[in-house]
């Protein structure tokens, strides 16, 4: 056998570094409410779900699924039912209400859930009965159930695109309302919803066709954010070691700081180093700049600029002026300071417009606000890229 260099074991064997606090917080919330987890892409939301699935809190049954696979409400309902059934393996009799609907389940379940006469079972009915059965499981076994549903926005988008003309948006609204009803009717069965893109973008799309409900407002929002500084450094050190990269003492700290303690960027940055390479702390900033300016790089930071138009429409120029100003400034800036910069950029708008825009930029995780109400880029790496890309 060929001798391998010493990075067996990959990158941490599935352990999620630095997320214990967020995970404990989610479990604590789940005791009372369901959770809507929303944050920037690659911040590590799916990893958090995986860790919860891997190591659930005592007394919880965890069902984790990526809903991007479902294109219709029927598929979604069938998936939920099958997941529940699979989780209760050996105790299928607990699914009494579903059994009343479709008869006794046997063997591998393929395709949509069907009624005894072969017709497709109504999807809302399937969901409602599955949840009712799970509620009884909680009642009888004392064990709680939580669905960890990833890529909920993809599900809704698929539903919109797959339905017959004009029906898609209505169907998506129904799915959202149904999920909300399930939470309200069976509060002992909990959910954690998340996805790569913010659900609010799908909601905004639905609002344009008169959707007036608030399908998330009973859920507790959680934004995991980057790792704490110490955890980011520890993660970087772990990655460097796994990659077999030698460096000065401060290299892990420098890497973590440069990319704003986001585990994805830390890992990807270290992945870009060669196995056995020796690195120096002072070279790392340059190495990062190389990646940030490499047109072929897969970090895809340009989407932070590209999507502004779609997200902010006519306010795009004002958004650019705000982000340019904050990218230039080392310290966080107040509304007044930002307004001065916006005025100097001559992009129009008054202070009230600015306030609204700042809220939107906050909601989309471009910015964060400190205790004194001052604004700064949420991720150091995005600010760094912004400066390079915009030549600031």
């Amino acid at each position, binding site marked *: *056998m*060929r001798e*391998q*260099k010493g*990075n*067996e*074991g*990959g*990158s*941490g*064997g*599935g352990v999620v570094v630095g997320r214990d606090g967020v995970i404990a917080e989610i479990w604590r919330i789940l005791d009372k409410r369901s959770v809507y987890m929303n944050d920037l*892409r*690659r911040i590590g939301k*799916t990893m958090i779900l995986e860790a919860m699935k891997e190591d659930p809190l005592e007394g919880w049954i965890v069902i*984790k*699924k*990526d*809903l*991007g*696979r479902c*294109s219709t409400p029927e*598929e979604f309902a069938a998936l939920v039912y099958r997941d529940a059934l699979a989780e209760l393996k050996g105790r299928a009799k607990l699914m009494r209400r579903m059994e009343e609907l479709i008869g006794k389940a046997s063997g*591998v379940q*393929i*395709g*949509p859930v069907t009624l005894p006469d072969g017709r497709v079972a109504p999807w809302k009915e399937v969901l409602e009965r599955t949840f009712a059965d799970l509620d009884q499981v909680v009642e009888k076994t004392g064990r709680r159930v939580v669905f960890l549903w*990833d*890529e909920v926005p*993809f599900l809704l988008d*698929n539903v919109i*695109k*797959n339905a017959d003309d004009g029906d898609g948006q209505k169907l998506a609204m129904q799915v959202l309302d149904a999920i909300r009803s399930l939470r309200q009717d069976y509060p002992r069965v909990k959910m954690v919803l998340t996805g*790569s*893109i913010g659900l609010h973008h799908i909601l905004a799309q639905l609002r344009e066709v008169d959707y007036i409900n608030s399908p998330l407002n009973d859920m507790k929002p959680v934004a995991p954010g980057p790792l704490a500084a110490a955890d980011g450094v520890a993660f970087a050190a772990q990655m460097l070691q796994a990659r077999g990269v030698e460096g000065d003492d401060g290299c892990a700290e420098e890497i973590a700081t440069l990319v704003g303690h986001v585990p*994805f960027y830390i890992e*990807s940055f270290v*992945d870009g180093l*060669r*196995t*056995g390479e020796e690195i120096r702390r002072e070279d790392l900033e340059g190495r990062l700049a190389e990646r940030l300016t490499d*047109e*072929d790089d*897969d*970090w*895809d930071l340009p*989407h932070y600029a*590209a*999507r502004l*138009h*779609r997200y902010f429409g006519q306010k795009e120029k004002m958004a650019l002026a705000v982000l340019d100003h904050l990218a230039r400034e080392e310290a966080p800036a107040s509304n007044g300071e930002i307004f001065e910069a916006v005025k100097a950029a001559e992009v129009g708008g008054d202070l009230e417009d600015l306030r609204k825009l700042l809220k939107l930029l906050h909601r989309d995780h471009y910015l964060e606000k400190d205790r004194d109400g001052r604004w700064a880029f949420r991720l150091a790496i995005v600010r760094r890229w912004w400066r390079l890309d915009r030549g600031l």
Partner: protein
Amino acid sequence: MSKRDPFISRFSPNRTDPEKLEQIHVERDDLLEDAVARVRASILGKKRKHLLFVGQRGSGKTHLLSLLVHRLRADGEAIDKVRIAWLNEDETSLSYTELLARVYRALVAAYPEEFTEDALAKAFELGVDGGRQYLEDLLAEQVGERRLLVLLENFDALLDALGEEGQRQWRAFLQDSRLMVVVATAQRMTQGMSKVNRKKGNPEEKLADEEKTFFGFFTVTAMSPFAVDEAAQLLKKLARLKGDPELVEFLDSRRGRARVRALRYLSGGNPRLYIVLSEFITKESFDELVRPFEEMVDERLTPYYQERLRWLSPQQRRLVEVLCQSREAMTVGVLAREVFAAENTVSGQLKKLREMGYVDATKGGRESYYELREPLMRLSMQVKGARGEEPLGLLVDFLKVWFEREELEERLEGGGVGELGRRYLLPAVESLREEGPVLRYSLLRRGVDGVDVASCSDEERARLYDLAEETGEAGDLINAGLAAGHAGALQVADGYLTRVVEQEGVSAEEVAWALFNRGVARWRQGDAEGEMADYGRVVELEGAPAEQVAKALVNRGVARGRQGDPEGEMADYDRVVELEGAPAEQVAKALINRGVARGEQGDVEGEMADYSWVVELEGAPAEQVAKALHNRGVVRGRRGDAEGEMADYGRVVELEGAPAEQVAKALVNRGVVRGQQGDTEGEMADYDLVMELEGASADQVVFALYNRGVAREEQGDVEGAMADYGRVVELEGAPVGSVAKARGRMWRVFRVSEKIDEARKLCREVLEKDQIVPDWVADELLTEVLSGGQGSESWQGKVGELYERFAGHGHLDKLGEGLVRQLGTLEEGHLNAKGLEDWVGVWEDAAGDNEAMVVGLRLLRAGVNYLKEGQRRELLRLPKEERALVMQALELEDEG
């Protein structure tokens, strides 16, 4: 092709014996080892990493996958825990369900005892949705706790075919099952690799939708084209494999390397093309190779590139076609003319083509030069253009670049070359007969034409060496020699220049160039005799240009001067001055040097005359005139002619084109003279000018600042003076001696104004920051200790601290010297016998036997003993030199 040559399949490395692939594998940044390690970790650990390799056609992607599988199969621990599905690269999948079916089918082929067609058949009965679920479950069940490694190529095309829905389904399975590990290859790091909502049939289109299904999912590695070293490595491995030691030897030579470099431009660094072309190097049977080569182009490459061209807009396609027809890189302007379009339009389209991976741009001066990224595209376009019986240009070019005319003639005449082979060999031979290997040379000259040999990069220097080796032309050899000399590779430089000197038929001018520069290289190697001999040969060389002769004479004169032969030196300068056709610059240099030499010989009149000659010399460069004026000014000053001196400096200041350094020197000197003449205002004005002068060296700025500080101090402007001294200290690049002087002035100012604390703070700063620690630092700090109290207890802590401070910055010797100088203060009667004993005792305790302090402490002990006893015999125990130091400190007269 593989029928005739089953040995290495160019298009299907996965059907080639992996052992053979291992033998020709060229490591690029540990790419393969890295990939194996990552996949292995995904198989054995909990976390999965999906890998994506991106590179143009023929960049070695399939080769890499083949070796990855080969090495995994040899890994006993990993192979049991994985099932490998390597998908046929020519098939595509229109849905995710179909992709799963392909995966399963690949498993049936690889593990027939575990996976069966029967099990797969059921999927087709269930339709697309049912089949998907069935296959996911089936794979999960059958693969079980193991991993499923899926190897697939043309990943970009697959994602296009799957569409958004299929991508999301696949992603969900990857996320939820944790079963599958994907290693994929793609030809482009496409914007759309994972982007949804792309227009069907136009995978190059960039859309604004940023929500990518597979964003951040893959660890992406770019397979860059082979560099020259890597290409040489590959060709050597191929030659070894084919048992051709002569070729291996040739590839190890400089000329071989030069050929590989020339080939690099033809092949674009594409490994597959190297493999294909290498066969024409090693195979005798030319005809056998030509047909499969043409087939490869006709059947494999052309359809592919035609398809890619179809994706482009008409204007983009036209630009690519023009670039296909050109062997040279082209500027925007030239391209715009060719297609009758506006430059800004063409520029915009080229930018898009670059982003899409069709073209590369290289900066050359103000312009960007564009060329095709993939040379295979040019090859295929030639076919598209109804080639008929025309031979493929690339292959003819290859023959012209790699072979000498004689070698090809030998092949032609040797018989065994059929009609097909002759179609290629004949045009190559004819071209070589008519114009020689101009193509090879022009390829090698790319990127080094007009390069500055004094400042070229390592890569450019390597190219210059290769070019010189290949052409052997005197001009190229001289450039290589000069580049080597500038890089400090003096023996290499000597070698190239010697080849020029010894070559027949080289012009006298080139020989003179080579000899002169070899002389310089020999001087730098410490070979004074060799140096002078080379200059001498230039001087004697018939037909050598006067400029070269003059330069050689000037340099020989300098060398003779260094050797202590002033007469010979001056004789050389005389010859330059008298030499017909000698450039004014060389005459001026000779005159200045002769002037200096005359001055050293005491002939001040002669010296002045030479400088004056330069000043009047028509055509003398401003730099030489400035030097002459400066030197004459100095001499005039020495002779007491302050007016004349200032006038000369003034002329330097006014001289158009005079180097900033010369002007700065003149200003500093004039400032000093003006000061001496009592014109303080004028003096300071000169120093001010130096500080404003762009290009003035740090040295001159420091002199000006320091001098202005002194002048200000003398004017009573202590604050201004201190500010100037402070600037000297802070100035980056200031000479350490000047810094020490400025610090000294500052210390004196503090002392005079009785700012004792400031003075001592300054001393500590000097110790901490400066390289030179003047005597007053130790004196001041020792005084501080002495004046701060009396007796061991009082001194102990302070002495310890002072010792550590000096020790910490490596200046204990200075402290030792200070202790000896301090004896004079002790003598003044401040301390009684016990106090003296305590003083020396405390130091002995603190410094112990530290080597740097041994002498100082010994002298201190002797001095204290003398002070206590008043007996000179205490001093006589010291060696004479040491005794002198103590006596000097105690201000004792030598009674001897």
